[in-house]
């Protein structure tokens, strides 16, 4: 009760949104997922990191070598966008499927339904954090110098995690009712990837589409990631807009969870 306002963000309406009361369960489920990912194949972690790195290589070749996109330090630029994006899209897609995927457990043992999307996001978040040093190494090798703006990295990471998790919460409940959502989400994530300035700079968008940029919840956030890893100063407006979007997702997720999640179990 030291910081009641902050506590309320973690437990809005007495609802344990971030599974704070289930630490042992979360610990076991996350370590299960990590063990399975990394134990069965000796190269497990290697693959998880290699996959986005190879994607970056492909994007670099196509956009830099063939399409001649002129962005300085394009390798870092791509990495600093694609790595957070990989976390975001994997978490949302995996998180969406968790209620259906764990239906045999959820209908037999009283587990808060938000546990499974949370675990999916947390597992991916750990992989994301482990990939961070790689991006920084590339930056340092290619001559970027980092300063105090690195202090913003935790802030950006929290916003990114919060957005992915809250979106996964909303979609996991929707997926129980709309069973073909899975196909739509794969496609929508693909569209979202290209609609977000990840491979290009916001300034490169033609004037008539500029307005849409800030309608994209991820627009400001990815601009921040780019600037941070390129050693530039962040724009406060971008951070604030991202926080505002995260807050909207958060409120929607609470509404869905508090009102609908328990009932959704009856349809599993």
């Amino acid at each position, binding site marked *: 009760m030291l910081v009641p306002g902050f506590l309320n963000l973690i437990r809005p309406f007495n609802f344990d949104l971030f599974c704070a009361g289930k630490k*042992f*369960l979360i*610990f*076991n*489920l996350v370590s*299960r997922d990590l*063990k*399975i990912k990394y*134990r*069965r194949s000796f190269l497990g972690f290697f693959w998880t990191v290699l996959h986005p790195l190879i994607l970056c290589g492909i994007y670099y070749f196509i956009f830099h070598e063939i399409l001649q996109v002129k962005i300085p330090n394009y390798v870092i630029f791509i990495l600093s966008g694609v790595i957070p994006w990989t976390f975001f899209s994997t978490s949302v897609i995996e998180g969406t499927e968790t209620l259906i995927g764990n239906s*045999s*457990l*959820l*209908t*037999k*043992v*009283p*587990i808060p339904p938000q546990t499974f999307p949370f675990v999916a996001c947390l597992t991916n978040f750990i992989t994301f954090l482990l990939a961070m040093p790689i991006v920084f190494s590339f930056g340092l090798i290619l001559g970027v110098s980092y300063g105090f703006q690195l202090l913003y990295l935790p802030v950006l990471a929290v916003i990114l995690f919060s957005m992915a998790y809250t979106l996964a919460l909303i979609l996991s409940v929707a997926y129980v*009712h*709309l*069973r*073909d*959502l899975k196909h*739509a989400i794969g496609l929508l994530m693909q569209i979202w990837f290209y609609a977000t300035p990840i491979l290009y700079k916001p300034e490169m968008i033609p004037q008539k589409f500029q307005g849409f940029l800030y309608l994209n919840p991820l627009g400001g956030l990815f601009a921040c990631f780019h600037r941070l890893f390129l050693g530039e100063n962040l724009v406060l407006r971008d951070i604030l807009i991202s926080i505002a979007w995260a807050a909207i997702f958060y409120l929607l997720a609470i509404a869905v969870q508090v009102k609908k999640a*328990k*009932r959704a*179990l*009856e349809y599993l």
Partner: protein
Amino acid sequence: MNSTSTPKVPSIEVRGLTKKFQVNTTRPGSLKTFLVRLSRGQLKSTEKQEFSVLSDLSFTIHEGEFVGIMGRNGVGKSTLLKLISGIYEPTLGTIKVKGTIAPLIELGAGFNPDLSGYENIFLNASILGFGREVTKKAVPNILNFAGLGDHIYSPVRNYSSGMQVRLGFSIATHLDAPILLIDEVLAVGDLEFQNKCIKKIKELHQQRRTIVLITHNPEAVRNHCDRCVLIDKHQIIFDGPAAQGASLYEQNMDLNS
């Protein structure tokens, strides 16, 4: 029953419990249908039908009681179990439960085939809702009862189904939960292990744990339970001594068949 010697402390209190499910025959069910309806403005016109699975149930189960809940298929026994364990929320009424429940509904819930039996103890215990300390303390007893020897360190995928059940049962019964919910899981494993399970449950009963058994088997109720609750047509039709309830259940089944 020892009701005269010790004061009765309620363990599970159910008051006016009603559970309705919605049968929404016109639910969209898919994004495609949802979008089509949305474009035609037909979303609001969905008809909602409700049916009661349980209506206005009230009963109290006291600490240390061994209660058998019986009823035919589809009368809502499993729904009642899910309501007591907190998976579903009541439409009306209240359920008060004192202490952690160990659900022996699915033994080895969430066992992961790639992890060792030992690792699965912690996973399973946490899924059942127990904490780190309780689990750690119970591990020696769990290992001892399951009797898997060195197999405990090999992946569960190499276990026979009997071995998995042994481990699952052992975990669920050694975590010191004051309440056990059992859903006819005892009919698994070999005869020797079945007897071991029954012995263990009787032992827990003697330790004054509350045990709720959901079953179709009047013999089981006669042999083990103190009390029987019969459910039919969404309501309690009998609540009393086990032997009487079991006989009534048999008569009821004969009448209806």
